[in-house]
């Protein structure tokens, strides 16, 4: 089965209660679909997302083997 890896960081991880999981690709077309599968609710306005470790937006398509990540605004430096 074709699948993607989904990772969560910081307060998003705490809210969802898990740091990583695999989703089957069925019915998942975009990053937005992945978020709804993960959280069951609309994405927060300031949510950041990446596919294969590059920043993307909610309408970016996903494909088999992708690593998708969701996280809050960053606070490094």
């Amino acid at each position, binding site marked *: 089965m074709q699948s993607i890896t989904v990772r969560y960081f910081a*307060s998003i991880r705490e809210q969802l209660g898990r740091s990583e999981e695999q989703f089957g690709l069925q019915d998942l077309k975009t990053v937005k679909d992945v978020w709804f599968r993960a959280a069951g609710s609309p994405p927060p306005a300031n949510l950041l997302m990446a596919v294969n470790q590059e920043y993307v937006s909610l309408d970016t398509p996903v494909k088999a083997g992708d690593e998708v*990540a969701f996280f809050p605004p960053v606070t*490094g430096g």
Partner: protein
Amino acid sequence: MSIRVQQEIFDPWKLLAAYESEHADRLGAKTGASAVFVGSMRDFNQDAVVTAMTLEHYPGMTEAYLEKISAEARHRWPIQDSLIVHRFGAIVPGEPIVLVAAWSGHRDAAFAACRYLIDELKHRAPFWKQEKTTTGLRWVEQEKS
């Protein structure tokens, strides 16, 4: 162009001296200017006393992003080299968190590149600070810039 994302504490000034010595062929007499930023952990944030911090990161993406902004700085300004060092894991007040340095023939490029690198790092590099205060744990919020 060097990036280091590490758990270990570092002394920014010893690190710079060692780096310049190691790369003396490139950073010797041809560069006249170096601009350096060091960010360290404070023991306060807004109203709270902060006693410790955990710095979370996204291994892989953090390095990729820092490499991307380093390449962009090199594209925009005539710099000979740049260095970014950033810690993750357990940090204690007073300890350095980040070092950014840029070397150029002239100060305009060195200052501008150094500023760009730390600003871009703070804007989008995937790190998240969790502070331990006297009232509990909290995630630091991104400053409105």
